Protein backbone atom coordinates (compact mmCIF):
# COMPACT_ATOMS: atom_id res chain seq x y z
CA UNK A 1 0.00 0.00 0.00
CA UNK A 2 2.84 2.37 0.88
CA UNK A 3 4.55 1.42 -2.36
CA UNK A 4 1.39 2.11 -4.36
CA UNK A 5 0.81 5.45 -2.60
CA UNK A 6 4.34 6.62 -3.39
CA UNK A 7 4.50 5.36 -6.96
CA UNK A 8 0.96 6.04 -8.17
CA UNK A 9 -0.06 8.80 -5.72
CA UNK A 10 1.78 11.52 -7.64
CA UNK A 11 -0.04 10.67 -10.86
CA UNK A 12 -3.42 10.58 -9.12
CA UNK A 13 -2.79 13.90 -7.34
CA UNK A 14 -1.52 15.48 -10.55
CA UNK A 15 -4.65 14.40 -12.43
CA UNK A 16 -6.89 15.69 -9.65
CA UNK A 17 -5.16 19.08 -9.67
CA UNK A 18 -5.16 19.54 -13.42
CA UNK A 19 -8.66 20.77 -14.20
CA UNK A 20 -9.34 21.79 -17.80
CA UNK A 21 -11.36 25.01 -18.25
CA UNK A 22 -13.81 26.05 -20.94
CA UNK A 23 -12.49 25.68 -24.52
CA UNK A 24 -10.99 28.82 -26.05
CA UNK A 25 -11.71 29.19 -29.75
CA UNK A 26 -8.42 30.07 -31.51
CA UNK A 27 -9.80 30.01 -35.04
CA UNK A 28 -12.39 28.12 -36.99
CA UNK A 29 -11.89 24.46 -36.19
CA UNK A 30 -9.14 25.06 -33.61
CA UNK A 31 -9.86 25.24 -29.87
CA UNK A 32 -7.80 24.66 -26.72
CA UNK A 33 -8.94 23.89 -23.17
CA UNK A 34 -6.54 25.76 -20.84
CA UNK A 35 -5.71 23.99 -17.57
CA UNK A 36 -6.22 25.73 -14.25
CA UNK A 37 -3.76 28.59 -13.78
CA UNK A 38 -3.40 29.34 -17.50
CA UNK A 39 -4.96 32.43 -19.05
CA UNK A 40 -5.38 33.29 -22.72
CA UNK A 41 -4.40 36.44 -24.61
CA UNK A 42 -5.33 36.96 -28.25
CA UNK A 43 -2.24 37.65 -30.36
CA UNK A 44 -2.80 38.42 -34.05
CA UNK A 45 -4.33 35.38 -35.73
CA UNK A 46 -3.53 33.13 -32.79
CA UNK A 47 -3.84 32.90 -29.03
CA UNK A 48 -1.12 32.90 -26.39
CA UNK A 49 -1.82 30.81 -23.29
CA UNK A 50 0.43 31.75 -20.38
CA UNK A 51 0.94 31.25 -16.69
CA UNK A 52 3.85 33.64 -16.34
CA UNK A 53 6.81 31.32 -16.49
CA UNK A 54 5.41 29.09 -19.24
CA UNK A 55 3.78 29.90 -22.54
CA UNK A 56 1.89 28.12 -25.27
CA UNK A 57 1.30 29.95 -28.52
CA UNK A 58 -1.30 28.48 -30.87
CA UNK A 59 -1.26 29.61 -34.52
CA UNK A 60 -3.96 28.39 -36.90
CA UNK A 61 -3.02 27.27 -40.41
CA UNK A 62 -4.98 26.44 -43.51
CA UNK A 63 -6.72 23.12 -44.00
CA UNK A 64 -4.86 20.42 -45.86
CA UNK A 65 -1.43 21.48 -44.62
CA UNK A 66 1.16 18.80 -44.03
CA UNK A 67 2.33 18.69 -40.36
CA UNK A 68 6.00 18.22 -41.25
CA UNK A 69 5.79 21.10 -43.75
CA UNK A 70 4.12 23.30 -41.13
CA UNK A 71 6.84 22.49 -38.61
CA UNK A 72 9.59 23.31 -41.13
CA UNK A 73 7.91 26.58 -42.09
CA UNK A 74 7.58 27.54 -38.41
CA UNK A 75 11.30 26.97 -37.86
CA UNK A 76 12.22 29.10 -40.89
CA UNK A 77 9.72 31.91 -40.36
CA UNK A 78 9.44 32.20 -36.57
CA UNK A 79 12.24 30.47 -34.66
CA UNK A 80 15.32 31.08 -36.81
CA UNK A 81 14.79 34.83 -37.37
CA UNK A 82 14.40 35.44 -33.63
CA UNK A 83 16.99 33.09 -32.15
CA UNK A 84 20.71 32.89 -31.68
CA UNK A 85 22.38 29.49 -31.33
CA UNK A 86 19.14 27.66 -32.13
CA UNK A 87 19.43 23.89 -31.71
CA UNK A 88 16.67 21.48 -32.72
CA UNK A 89 16.07 17.89 -31.63
CA UNK A 90 16.95 15.20 -34.15
CA UNK A 91 14.05 14.14 -36.36
CA UNK A 92 10.32 14.63 -35.83
CA UNK A 93 8.36 12.70 -33.24
CA UNK A 94 4.90 11.55 -34.35
CA UNK A 95 2.07 12.55 -32.01
CA UNK A 96 -1.63 11.77 -31.99
CA UNK A 97 -4.19 14.08 -30.38
CA UNK A 98 -7.10 12.84 -28.29
CA UNK A 99 -9.42 13.47 -31.26
CA UNK A 100 -7.32 11.21 -33.47
CA UNK A 101 -5.54 13.93 -35.51
CA UNK A 102 -1.89 13.20 -36.21
CA UNK A 103 0.99 15.61 -35.99
CA UNK A 104 4.71 15.96 -35.49
CA UNK A 105 6.74 17.38 -32.63
CA UNK A 106 10.30 18.61 -32.13
CA UNK A 107 12.14 20.29 -29.26
CA UNK A 108 14.35 23.34 -29.49
CA UNK A 109 16.66 25.48 -27.41
CA UNK A 110 18.24 28.84 -28.08
CA UNK A 111 18.61 32.45 -27.03
CA UNK A 112 15.70 34.60 -28.17
CA UNK A 113 15.44 38.34 -28.48
CA UNK A 114 12.38 39.88 -26.93
CA UNK A 115 11.46 42.88 -24.77
CA UNK A 116 14.90 44.41 -25.37
CA UNK A 117 17.00 41.54 -24.07
CA UNK A 118 18.22 38.10 -25.09
CA UNK A 119 16.69 35.24 -23.09
CA UNK A 120 17.66 31.56 -23.17
CA UNK A 121 14.56 29.47 -23.81
CA UNK A 122 13.65 25.83 -24.25
CA UNK A 123 10.54 24.68 -26.04
CA UNK A 124 8.59 22.21 -28.13
CA UNK A 125 6.70 22.76 -31.35
CA UNK A 126 3.80 20.51 -32.31
CA UNK A 127 2.25 20.84 -35.75
CA UNK A 128 -1.12 19.16 -36.23
CA UNK A 129 -3.40 18.89 -39.23
CA UNK A 130 -7.03 17.86 -39.24
CA UNK A 131 -9.43 17.51 -42.17
CA UNK A 132 -10.69 21.13 -42.02
CA UNK A 133 -8.00 23.00 -40.06
CA UNK A 134 -4.39 22.85 -38.92
CA UNK A 135 -2.40 24.52 -36.15
CA UNK A 136 1.10 25.01 -34.79
CA UNK A 137 1.53 24.82 -31.00
CA UNK A 138 4.73 26.39 -29.70
CA UNK A 139 5.37 25.86 -25.96
CA UNK A 140 8.34 27.51 -24.30
CA UNK A 141 9.86 28.55 -20.97
CA UNK A 142 13.24 29.19 -19.39
CA UNK A 143 15.33 25.98 -19.63
CA UNK A 144 15.37 25.44 -15.85
CA UNK A 145 11.56 25.49 -15.58
CA UNK A 146 10.51 23.96 -18.89
CA UNK A 147 10.58 20.46 -17.39
CA UNK A 148 7.80 21.58 -15.04
CA UNK A 149 5.72 23.18 -17.82
CA UNK A 150 5.94 20.24 -20.21
CA UNK A 151 3.21 18.11 -18.62
CA UNK A 152 0.69 20.97 -18.75
CA UNK A 153 1.40 22.11 -22.27
CA UNK A 154 1.46 18.60 -23.67
CA UNK A 155 -1.89 17.92 -22.05
CA UNK A 156 -3.36 21.12 -23.50
CA UNK A 157 -2.02 20.21 -26.95
CA UNK A 158 -3.24 16.64 -26.73
CA UNK A 159 -6.76 17.69 -25.68
CA UNK A 160 -6.98 20.47 -28.28
CA UNK A 161 -9.44 20.18 -31.13
CA UNK A 162 -8.02 20.73 -34.60
CA UNK A 163 -10.25 20.26 -37.61
Amino acid at each position, binding site marked *: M*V*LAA*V*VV*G*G*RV*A*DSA*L*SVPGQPVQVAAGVSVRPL*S*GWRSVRQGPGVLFT*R*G*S*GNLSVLPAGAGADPAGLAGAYVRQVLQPNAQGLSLSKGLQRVRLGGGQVGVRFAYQGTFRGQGRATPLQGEVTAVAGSRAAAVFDAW*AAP*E*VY*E*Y*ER*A*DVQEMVETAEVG
Partner: protein
Amino acid sequence: MLLLVGTGLLALGQQRSLREMSPSGWMLSWALLALYLVPMFLLVYLLDAYEREPLSLVLGALAWGAVAATSLAGLANHDWGAVVARLGGPDLAAQWTAALTAPLVEETLKAVGVVLIYLIARSELNGLLDGFVYGAMVGLGFAVVENVFYFVGQFGGQPAGVLGGFFVRVLASGLYGHVLYSGLTGMGIAWFVTRTDQRRGRRLLFAGALCLAAVLAHFLWNSPLLNLFPTGELTLAEALVAIPLAAAVKGVPFLVLVVLLVGLARRQERRWLEVAAAGELGGPALSAEELAVLERPRRRWAARRVMRRRSGRRAAALLRRLQRQQLSLAMLHTRLAGDEDPDLVGQRQRIAQTRQALQAAVAASSRGPATV
Protein backbone atom coordinates in the same frame (compact mmCIF):
# COMPACT_ATOMS: atom_id res chain seq x y z
CA MET B 1 10.33 -11.11 -6.83
CA LEU B 2 7.71 -10.14 -9.43
CA LEU B 3 8.38 -6.50 -8.70
CA LEU B 4 12.13 -7.04 -9.09
CA VAL B 5 11.60 -8.76 -12.45
CA GLY B 6 9.19 -6.08 -13.69
CA THR B 7 11.37 -3.19 -12.63
CA GLY B 8 14.42 -5.13 -13.84
CA LEU B 9 13.04 -5.03 -17.38
CA LEU B 10 12.39 -1.31 -17.00
CA ALA B 11 15.93 -0.79 -15.67
CA LEU B 12 17.44 -2.77 -18.55
CA GLY B 13 15.57 -0.59 -21.03
CA GLN B 14 16.83 2.54 -19.29
CA GLN B 15 20.42 1.29 -19.34
CA ARG B 16 20.09 0.45 -23.04
CA SER B 17 18.91 4.02 -23.73
CA LEU B 18 21.84 5.44 -21.78
CA ARG B 19 24.26 3.20 -23.67
CA GLU B 20 22.80 4.36 -27.00
CA MET B 21 23.19 8.00 -25.91
CA SER B 22 26.90 7.54 -25.28
CA PRO B 23 28.46 4.04 -25.47
CA SER B 24 31.89 5.19 -24.26
CA GLY B 25 30.41 7.37 -21.48
CA TRP B 26 28.17 4.55 -20.33
CA MET B 27 31.04 2.04 -20.19
CA LEU B 28 33.30 4.51 -18.41
CA SER B 29 30.53 5.31 -15.91
CA TRP B 30 30.16 1.66 -14.91
CA ALA B 31 33.94 1.13 -14.75
CA LEU B 32 34.39 4.15 -12.48
CA LEU B 33 31.41 3.22 -10.34
CA ALA B 34 32.83 -0.28 -9.83
CA LEU B 35 35.76 1.48 -8.13
CA TYR B 36 33.25 3.00 -5.72
CA LEU B 37 30.96 -0.01 -5.39
CA VAL B 38 33.50 -2.66 -4.41
CA PRO B 39 35.23 -0.86 -1.51
CA MET B 40 31.95 0.55 -0.19
CA PHE B 41 30.37 -2.90 -0.35
CA LEU B 42 33.25 -4.41 1.63
CA LEU B 43 33.28 -1.54 4.13
CA VAL B 44 29.57 -1.97 4.88
CA TYR B 45 29.58 -5.76 4.74
CA LEU B 46 32.53 -6.08 7.14
CA LEU B 47 31.07 -3.57 9.63
CA ASP B 48 29.26 -6.31 11.49
CA ALA B 49 32.19 -7.92 13.22
CA TYR B 50 30.29 -10.74 14.94
CA GLU B 51 27.63 -12.02 12.61
CA ARG B 52 28.05 -11.33 8.91
CA GLU B 53 24.74 -11.14 7.09
CA PRO B 54 24.00 -13.87 4.50
CA LEU B 55 25.43 -12.83 1.15
CA SER B 56 22.19 -13.75 -0.63
CA LEU B 57 20.22 -11.23 1.45
CA VAL B 58 22.91 -8.58 1.17
CA LEU B 59 22.96 -8.95 -2.62
CA GLY B 60 19.15 -8.90 -2.61
CA ALA B 61 19.25 -5.57 -0.76
CA LEU B 62 21.76 -4.22 -3.27
CA ALA B 63 19.55 -5.38 -6.16
CA TRP B 64 16.44 -3.79 -4.64
CA GLY B 65 18.22 -0.44 -4.41
CA ALA B 66 19.79 -0.70 -7.87
CA VAL B 67 16.80 -2.01 -9.78
CA ALA B 68 13.41 -1.66 -8.07
CA ALA B 69 13.94 1.50 -6.02
CA THR B 70 15.63 3.47 -8.84
CA SER B 71 13.06 2.46 -11.48
CA LEU B 72 10.05 3.22 -9.29
CA ALA B 73 11.64 6.45 -8.03
CA GLY B 74 12.09 7.60 -11.63
CA LEU B 75 8.35 7.31 -12.22
CA ALA B 76 7.23 8.68 -8.87
CA ASN B 77 9.66 11.64 -8.74
CA HIS B 78 8.41 12.85 -12.12
CA ASP B 79 4.75 12.72 -11.11
CA TRP B 80 5.24 14.30 -7.69
CA GLY B 81 7.38 16.98 -9.37
CA ALA B 82 4.39 17.82 -11.55
CA VAL B 83 2.26 18.12 -8.40
CA VAL B 84 4.77 20.58 -6.86
CA ALA B 85 4.71 22.59 -10.10
CA ARG B 86 0.89 22.74 -10.04
CA LEU B 87 0.71 23.75 -6.39
CA GLY B 88 3.69 26.11 -6.18
CA GLY B 89 4.31 27.07 -9.79
CA PRO B 90 7.17 26.10 -12.10
CA ASP B 91 9.63 28.63 -10.62
CA LEU B 92 9.29 27.16 -7.13
CA ALA B 93 9.32 23.67 -8.65
CA ALA B 94 12.58 24.33 -10.47
CA GLN B 95 14.27 25.27 -7.20
CA TRP B 96 12.59 22.96 -4.70
CA THR B 97 11.23 19.87 -6.42
CA ALA B 98 14.37 17.82 -5.86
CA ALA B 99 14.19 18.65 -2.15
CA LEU B 100 10.44 18.24 -1.72
CA THR B 101 9.87 15.03 -3.66
CA ALA B 102 13.03 12.87 -3.87
CA PRO B 103 13.71 12.54 -0.10
CA LEU B 104 10.23 11.21 0.69
CA VAL B 105 9.84 9.13 -2.47
CA GLU B 106 13.32 7.63 -2.54
CA GLU B 107 13.72 7.03 1.20
CA THR B 108 10.33 5.30 1.28
CA LEU B 109 11.13 3.08 -1.70
CA LYS B 110 14.52 2.14 -0.25
CA ALA B 111 12.98 1.48 3.18
CA VAL B 112 10.56 -0.95 1.55
CA GLY B 113 13.63 -2.99 0.53
CA VAL B 114 14.74 -3.32 4.16
CA VAL B 115 11.21 -4.23 5.24
CA LEU B 116 11.10 -6.93 2.56
CA ILE B 117 14.43 -8.34 3.77
CA TYR B 118 12.93 -8.49 7.27
CA LEU B 119 9.77 -10.21 6.02
CA ILE B 120 11.85 -12.76 4.07
CA ALA B 121 14.28 -13.57 6.88
CA ARG B 122 13.14 -12.17 10.23
CA SER B 123 15.88 -13.90 12.20
CA GLU B 124 18.61 -12.15 10.20
CA LEU B 125 17.56 -8.67 11.27
CA ASN B 126 18.39 -8.94 14.96
CA GLY B 127 20.29 -5.75 15.77
CA LEU B 128 20.73 -2.11 14.81
CA LEU B 129 23.90 -2.90 12.91
CA ASP B 130 22.07 -5.47 10.79
CA GLY B 131 19.55 -2.78 9.88
CA PHE B 132 22.36 -0.42 8.95
CA VAL B 133 24.06 -3.05 6.76
CA TYR B 134 20.88 -3.92 4.81
CA GLY B 135 19.82 -0.28 4.52
CA ALA B 136 23.27 0.86 3.41
CA MET B 137 23.38 -1.91 0.80
CA VAL B 138 20.02 -0.77 -0.61
CA GLY B 139 21.40 2.79 -0.67
CA LEU B 140 24.63 1.68 -2.32
CA GLY B 141 22.77 -0.05 -5.15
CA PHE B 142 20.58 3.02 -5.58
CA ALA B 143 23.55 5.42 -5.61
CA VAL B 144 25.45 3.46 -8.26
CA VAL B 145 22.57 3.28 -10.74
CA GLU B 146 21.51 6.86 -10.07
CA ASN B 147 25.07 8.00 -10.74
CA VAL B 148 25.09 6.28 -14.15
CA PHE B 149 22.00 8.37 -15.00
CA TYR B 150 23.72 11.54 -13.81
CA PHE B 151 27.03 10.85 -15.56
CA VAL B 152 25.41 10.12 -18.93
CA GLY B 153 22.29 12.29 -18.71
CA GLN B 154 23.40 15.36 -16.76
CA PHE B 155 27.16 15.53 -17.17
CA GLY B 156 26.99 15.17 -20.95
CA GLY B 157 27.92 11.50 -21.24
CA GLN B 158 31.26 12.16 -22.93
CA PRO B 159 34.35 10.81 -21.11
CA ALA B 160 35.35 14.27 -19.85
CA GLY B 161 31.83 14.86 -18.51
CA VAL B 162 31.70 11.42 -16.90
CA LEU B 163 35.02 12.07 -15.16
CA GLY B 164 33.68 15.42 -13.97
CA GLY B 165 30.55 13.71 -12.68
CA PHE B 166 32.63 11.08 -10.92
CA PHE B 167 34.61 13.81 -9.20
CA VAL B 168 31.53 15.79 -8.09
CA ARG B 169 29.21 12.93 -7.12
CA VAL B 170 31.62 10.24 -5.91
CA LEU B 171 35.04 11.61 -4.98
CA ALA B 172 33.73 14.87 -3.48
CA SER B 173 30.44 13.66 -2.05
CA GLY B 174 30.26 9.85 -2.27
CA LEU B 175 30.47 9.46 1.48
CA TYR B 176 27.38 11.51 2.24
CA GLY B 177 24.52 10.23 0.11
CA HIS B 178 22.17 7.30 -0.21
CA VAL B 179 24.36 4.84 1.72
CA LEU B 180 24.03 6.95 4.86
CA TYR B 181 20.37 7.90 4.39
CA SER B 182 19.09 4.38 3.95
CA GLY B 183 21.60 2.99 6.44
CA LEU B 184 19.94 5.23 9.02
CA THR B 185 16.47 4.22 7.84
CA GLY B 186 17.54 0.58 8.15
CA MET B 187 18.59 1.23 11.74
CA GLY B 188 15.19 2.74 12.42
CA ILE B 189 13.42 -0.31 11.03
CA ALA B 190 15.75 -2.62 12.97
CA TRP B 191 15.04 -0.68 16.16
CA PHE B 192 11.30 -1.11 15.67
CA VAL B 193 11.45 -4.86 15.01
CA THR B 194 14.13 -5.83 17.53
CA ARG B 195 13.51 -3.66 20.60
CA THR B 196 10.42 -5.59 21.60
CA ASP B 197 11.29 -4.97 25.26
CA GLN B 198 10.01 -1.40 24.74
CA ARG B 199 6.45 -0.21 24.35
CA ARG B 200 5.20 -0.06 20.76
CA GLY B 201 4.69 3.72 20.85
CA ARG B 202 8.23 4.31 22.05
CA ARG B 203 9.67 2.00 19.41
CA LEU B 204 7.64 3.75 16.74
CA LEU B 205 8.82 7.15 17.95
CA PHE B 206 12.50 6.22 17.91
CA ALA B 207 12.30 4.39 14.58
CA GLY B 208 10.34 7.29 13.09
CA ALA B 209 12.93 9.77 14.34
CA LEU B 210 15.74 7.86 12.63
CA CYS B 211 13.79 7.62 9.36
CA LEU B 212 12.88 11.31 9.58
CA ALA B 213 16.55 12.20 10.15
CA ALA B 214 17.40 10.37 6.92
CA VAL B 215 14.67 12.24 5.01
CA LEU B 216 15.80 15.58 6.46
CA ALA B 217 19.44 14.94 5.56
CA HIS B 218 18.36 14.07 2.01
CA PHE B 219 16.14 17.18 1.92
CA LEU B 220 19.02 19.41 2.98
CA TRP B 221 21.33 17.86 0.40
CA ASN B 222 18.84 18.46 -2.44
CA SER B 223 17.62 21.89 -1.32
CA PRO B 224 19.06 25.30 -2.21
CA LEU B 225 19.75 25.81 1.54
CA LEU B 226 23.45 25.99 2.47
CA ASN B 227 24.22 25.49 -1.20
CA LEU B 228 27.82 26.62 -1.61
CA PHE B 229 28.45 24.65 -4.79
CA PRO B 230 30.23 26.98 -7.22
CA THR B 231 28.58 27.93 -10.50
CA GLY B 232 30.04 29.23 -13.75
CA GLU B 233 33.51 28.65 -15.13
CA LEU B 234 36.06 27.34 -12.60
CA THR B 235 39.73 26.63 -12.86
CA LEU B 236 40.77 23.06 -12.05
CA ALA B 237 42.33 24.18 -8.76
CA GLU B 238 39.18 26.06 -7.74
CA ALA B 239 36.99 23.06 -8.58
CA LEU B 240 39.24 20.67 -6.63
CA VAL B 241 38.87 22.80 -3.51
CA ALA B 242 35.45 24.45 -3.77
CA ILE B 243 33.34 21.39 -4.68
CA PRO B 244 34.56 19.06 -1.88
CA LEU B 245 34.21 21.95 0.60
CA ALA B 246 30.64 22.69 -0.51
CA ALA B 247 29.79 18.99 -0.28
CA ALA B 248 31.35 18.77 3.19
CA VAL B 249 29.24 21.67 4.50
CA LYS B 250 26.07 19.72 3.72
CA GLY B 251 27.33 16.21 4.29
CA VAL B 252 29.79 16.09 7.18
CA PRO B 253 27.35 16.79 10.06
CA PHE B 254 25.15 13.90 8.98
CA LEU B 255 28.17 11.65 8.38
CA VAL B 256 29.33 12.35 11.95
CA LEU B 257 25.86 11.50 13.29
CA VAL B 258 25.76 8.18 11.42
CA VAL B 259 29.33 7.25 12.43
CA LEU B 260 28.39 7.89 16.08
CA LEU B 261 25.23 5.79 15.77
CA VAL B 262 27.10 2.94 14.06
CA GLY B 263 29.72 3.11 16.83
CA LEU B 264 26.97 2.81 19.44
CA ALA B 265 25.41 -0.07 17.52
CA ARG B 266 28.75 -1.91 17.43
CA ARG B 267 29.14 -1.38 21.18
CA GLN B 268 25.63 -2.77 21.63
CA GLU B 269 26.65 -5.83 19.56
CA ARG B 270 29.68 -6.36 21.82
CA ARG B 271 27.47 -6.27 24.92
CA TRP B 272 25.10 -8.66 23.17
CA LEU B 273 28.01 -11.02 22.56
CA GLU B 274 29.09 -10.88 26.23
CA VAL B 275 25.59 -11.66 27.44
CA ALA B 276 25.02 -14.37 24.86
CA ALA B 277 28.35 -16.07 25.54
CA ALA B 278 28.05 -15.88 29.35
CA GLY B 279 26.42 -19.32 29.59
CA GLU B 280 29.34 -20.96 27.76
CA LEU B 281 32.15 -19.25 29.67
CA GLY B 282 34.43 -21.69 31.50
CA GLY B 283 33.01 -24.63 29.53
CA PRO B 284 34.89 -26.58 26.86
CA ALA B 285 33.54 -24.42 24.04
CA LEU B 286 34.69 -20.98 25.19
CA SER B 287 37.23 -19.65 27.70
CA ALA B 288 37.28 -16.14 29.18
CA GLU B 289 40.52 -15.45 27.29
CA GLU B 290 38.95 -16.55 24.03
CA LEU B 291 35.91 -14.31 24.63
CA ALA B 292 38.22 -11.33 25.24
CA VAL B 293 39.77 -12.01 21.82
CA LEU B 294 36.42 -12.64 20.12
CA GLU B 295 35.00 -9.32 21.29
CA ARG B 296 37.48 -7.27 19.26
CA PRO B 297 37.95 -7.91 15.54
CA ARG B 298 41.51 -6.56 15.74
CA ARG B 299 42.40 -9.04 18.47
CA ARG B 300 40.95 -11.86 16.36
CA TRP B 301 43.05 -10.83 13.36
CA ALA B 302 46.14 -10.46 15.58
CA ALA B 303 45.63 -13.93 17.11
CA ARG B 304 45.38 -15.47 13.63
CA ARG B 305 48.47 -13.58 12.49
CA VAL B 306 50.44 -14.89 15.46
CA MET B 307 49.11 -18.40 14.83
CA ARG B 308 50.15 -18.27 11.18
CA ARG B 309 53.64 -17.07 12.10
CA ARG B 310 54.10 -19.74 14.74
CA SER B 311 52.22 -22.74 13.34
CA GLY B 312 51.48 -22.09 9.67
CA ARG B 313 48.52 -21.28 7.42
CA ARG B 314 46.50 -24.39 8.21
CA ALA B 315 46.55 -23.66 11.93
CA ALA B 316 45.57 -20.02 11.27
CA ALA B 317 42.67 -21.19 9.09
CA LEU B 318 41.52 -23.56 11.80
CA LEU B 319 41.69 -20.79 14.39
CA ARG B 320 39.55 -18.63 12.09
CA ARG B 321 37.01 -21.46 11.85
CA LEU B 322 37.05 -21.92 15.63
CA GLN B 323 36.39 -18.21 16.18
CA ARG B 324 33.46 -18.24 13.73
CA GLN B 325 31.96 -21.32 15.37
CA GLN B 326 32.26 -19.69 18.80
CA LEU B 327 30.51 -16.56 17.52
CA SER B 328 27.78 -18.74 16.00
CA LEU B 329 27.40 -20.51 19.35
CA ALA B 330 26.81 -17.16 21.05
CA MET B 331 24.32 -16.23 18.35
CA LEU B 332 22.45 -19.51 18.85
CA HIS B 333 22.12 -18.66 22.54
CA THR B 334 20.15 -15.53 21.62
CA ARG B 335 17.64 -17.55 19.61
CA LEU B 336 17.27 -20.77 21.58
CA ALA B 337 15.74 -21.10 24.99
CA GLY B 338 17.33 -24.13 26.68
CA ASP B 339 21.05 -24.79 27.25
CA GLU B 340 20.69 -28.34 25.97
CA ASP B 341 18.95 -27.54 22.70
CA PRO B 342 20.18 -29.96 19.99
CA ASP B 343 21.49 -27.07 17.87
CA LEU B 344 23.61 -25.82 20.78
CA VAL B 345 24.89 -29.32 21.54
CA GLY B 346 25.78 -29.84 17.86
CA GLN B 347 27.62 -26.51 17.72
CA ARG B 348 29.62 -27.39 20.85
CA GLN B 349 30.61 -30.67 19.20
CA ARG B 350 31.77 -28.87 16.07
CA ILE B 351 33.83 -26.51 18.23
CA ALA B 352 35.41 -29.50 20.02
CA GLN B 353 36.34 -31.08 16.68
CA THR B 354 37.85 -27.86 15.35
CA ARG B 355 39.78 -27.39 18.60
CA GLN B 356 41.20 -30.92 18.32
CA ALA B 357 42.19 -30.33 14.69
CA LEU B 358 43.80 -27.05 15.66
CA GLN B 359 45.78 -28.67 18.47
CA ALA B 360 46.95 -31.38 16.06
CA ALA B 361 47.97 -28.78 13.48
CA VAL B 362 49.90 -26.83 16.08
CA ALA B 363 51.63 -29.97 17.37
CA ALA B 364 52.50 -31.10 13.85
CA SER B 365 54.00 -27.77 12.88
CA SER B 366 57.77 -27.70 12.93
CA ARG B 367 57.90 -24.27 14.44
CA GLY B 368 57.58 -25.35 18.00
CA PRO B 369 54.76 -26.19 20.37
CA ALA B 370 51.93 -23.83 21.08
CA THR B 371 49.08 -24.03 23.51
CA VAL B 372 45.47 -23.60 22.51
